């Protein structure tokens, strides 16, 4: 099985990248989802986690039954997965929001680099401008 993991990781990565470059925002996000999955799998396979006992210390034992699966990559992946989830949740919210504000999810049309940004700022800071005028 281990021998196959790199191929799997690579292909998931490829698929993710392909989606990442697509027009639709949601598609891009699904792409990111896949990419993070693939990177986690890569970390897993790079950590040489082989088909062995889970890294647990059985009752009454002091050390786990050897050979045990390498625990460190597991811990790292756990952290990475959770972090990735948090970021993804944020991105989804962002996508939702920008659809509400900008009215489309087509990245080519809506995501031109904004030029003059002062209007936005001024609008947002109305209360302060009131302070200025008085």
């Amino acid at each position, binding site marked *: 099985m281990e021998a196959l993991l790199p191929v799997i990781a690579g292909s*998931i990565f490829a698929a993710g990248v392909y989606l990442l470059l697509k027009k639709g925002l949601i598609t891009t996000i699904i792409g990111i989802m896949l990419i993070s999955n693939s990177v986690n799998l890569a970390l897993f396979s790079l950590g040489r986690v082989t088909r062995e006992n889970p890294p647990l210390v059985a009752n009454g034992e002091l050390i786990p039954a050897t050979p045990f699966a390498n625990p460190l990559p597991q811990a790292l992946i756990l952290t990475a997965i959770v972090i990735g989830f948090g970021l993804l949740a944020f991105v989804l919210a962002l996508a939702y929001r920008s659809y509400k504000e900008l009215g489309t999810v087509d990245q080519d049309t809506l995501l031109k680099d904004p030029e003059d940004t002062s209007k936005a700022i001024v609008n947002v800071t109305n209360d302060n401008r009131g302070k200025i005028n008085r």
Partner: protein
Amino acid sequence: MLIMIALIFGVALVTPWLSGLLKEKAGWVLALLPLSSFIYLVSWIPEIATGGTVTQSTVWVSMDYFEVNLAFYLDGLSLMFGLIITGIGTFIVLYGNGYLHDNIYLPRFHCTNLLFMGSMLGVVLADNLISIFVFWELTSFTSYLLIGFNHEQEASRKAALQALLVTGIGGLALLAGMILMGFATGHWEVSTLLNEGDIVRNHLHYLPILLLVLGGAFTKSAQFPFHFWLPSAMAAPTPVSAYLHSATMVKAGVYILARLHPVLGSTEPWLILVGGFGLVTLLMSAWLSISFTDMKQILAYSTVMSLGTMMMLIGLGTGLAMQALVVYIFTHAMYKGALFMVAGAIDHEAGTRDVLKLGGLWSLMPISAVTAIIAALSMAGIPPLYGFIAKELLYESALEVAGWPVLFISVAVIANMAIVAASAIVVIRPFFGKQVKTPHKAHEAPFSMWIGSAVLAVLSMIFGIWPFLVDKNLMVPAASGVWGAPMNFYLSLWHGINLPLILSVVTLAGGILVYWHWDYLRDSIPMRVYQTGFAKFPVKVYENLVNGMLGLAGWQTRVLQNGLISNYLVTILIAALIGIGYTFVSRSGVILNPDFTEIYFYEWALVIAIFTSLGIILAFGHSRLTMVIGAGVVGFNLALIYLIHGAADLAMTQVMVETLTVILVVLVLIHVPQLQATRNLISQSRDAFVAVASGLLMTLLIYTATSTPLDMFISEFYAEASYPLAHGRNIVNVILVDFRALDTMGEVVVMSVAGIAVYALIKMTRTGSAKNRSEKINSGKPGSAKKKSATSGSTPKGKAL
């Protein structure tokens, strides 16, 4: 001296408040500052005159890579320049106070003007190469502000930028040259460098150093082909022109070359470059000067001509040339300053500077008239004025040039004819002839405005008649400062009939002749062509350079920063592919030794499942739901893979997170419609290529990295320490909460911030209904997201059953 300069800077900074205090009188008070420093410098004359030099040094930065001292070195040369700067500076402060008395920016003028004075003094007095550069840049900076003084007008802003850029690039070249010089000798003090000329001259980098330094000097001193910025800089108010662009700043280049002459000078390239460019400049600008009718333009080009003369003299590098140089600098400062002030006065009182629109002012402005006449005579080099001595010396030194004296002397004579004509123009036209109607009713300028020019003019007459007043105690030390070795000479007005005198006569005659036919000459075709070729064309070149740069910039930005995120990503990916892939293949090479034995059939099933769902995801680009489902399947199978490899917690988390993510995506899908548009085939195939390549690269990297056994010493330690030391049976958990607790803390922070983020994103809203708010708020945090989606999912059920 440090105190002196620091004082000037200090006062300059408080000037705005100061002049707020004492309104009109500000100028008079401030004038005391340069005056006092003038007196201070004068007090050194006795010591300098006896061949002594003064060095004062204060450590600024001193470490094993920097030796930047605020060191000052006072010898004849720097003393002369210092006197010129402070002396004329005194009058300029007064003059400016009168000239700009009704200008609201007068305080700012005083401020920047004093700042400039301080930095200029710094340039001529500084000893350390770096500190010279520091002051050098400061002069560029302050002159930028002074030229752009009338900043409401487009022209003066342009001119200011022009001056700043031209001198700025020169300054940077100078810096490089100085650093190279420092590396070559290992010394950063001019005073020590002066004795190390041979090292520099024989050094491998001599030519680069020379070129870089010349770059600095030529740009600053407006030598051909950089001369164009000086005339445009006449947009500045007259006091500025009088001070910066005739008396002081433009001479900084001359000064630096004169200063470094002992170090770099008297070599073949030096003679050719400095002398040659000087020669070209002086010839060109002399005749340009009489092609204009604006007094300031005429004076400006004549200044350029004088600068060219100085350069030529430096280039010649003979002892006589040195004498000529110092005398010429001295006299030029006096008469040109005076003339500029007069021109300004006329402009100020009569409202125009165009000699054609002026006439017969002598009765209205007698003092200015007299001053102008004296100064002009000195400029034309007519006895008994100091300018005459200078010209004599110039001719003499031109005559004794090794090589082709004929060339030099003839050029000098021809150029001086034009100058004679020019000086005639600037005096005769405005003051004599019949009176003409001028914009303002002209009257004599106020005291503060004529005193300076008057004094200077008178001085140049006095020194002309009694040269010994200055030569022993000023000219000789200065000349020897340039010469690099003590020299001795005396100046006199009358050498009897000799070749230079004859030449002077010739020059005078020629000049008068030229003046006679000026009106015709000015409008003649060749003159026009000449003017366009040498006055306007360089400006055009400069402008085209700037515009070209801007065009390039615009093009590059349009190409790179085109706002298409997919293009950004593709660029990044391709860069990564090339960078990583090339390195990988060329440096490491692919190592493949996987063994595909012992893969159970059910594992094959998982693999097939993953690939199938990937295929589904890619194939069903038009149905996002299907893509999400596919992604979910992939996630589940990954969880299974983790599980098979004994990573229970991992599998658990994977399942949880995957499902939650899918749920969140679906929740968003509910609110965000499907996008119909797709890319064209080319970009699709481009994307496909990039994707496949990156996937392949990743696979190969992993194979290569895993081809060698892994040292699991850390995990073994964890395994041993987990229960006995950390009292945890699940090693992965122990790692998370104990060995690497900080990671977990960060993780928690990320999660909670993401929660806040989603909350803010959804709640800070002007659109969108309350219901989908509540959903999305909770979807930030996994636990509540579960609960929420449960209720949201069961809403229809609750209704249904």
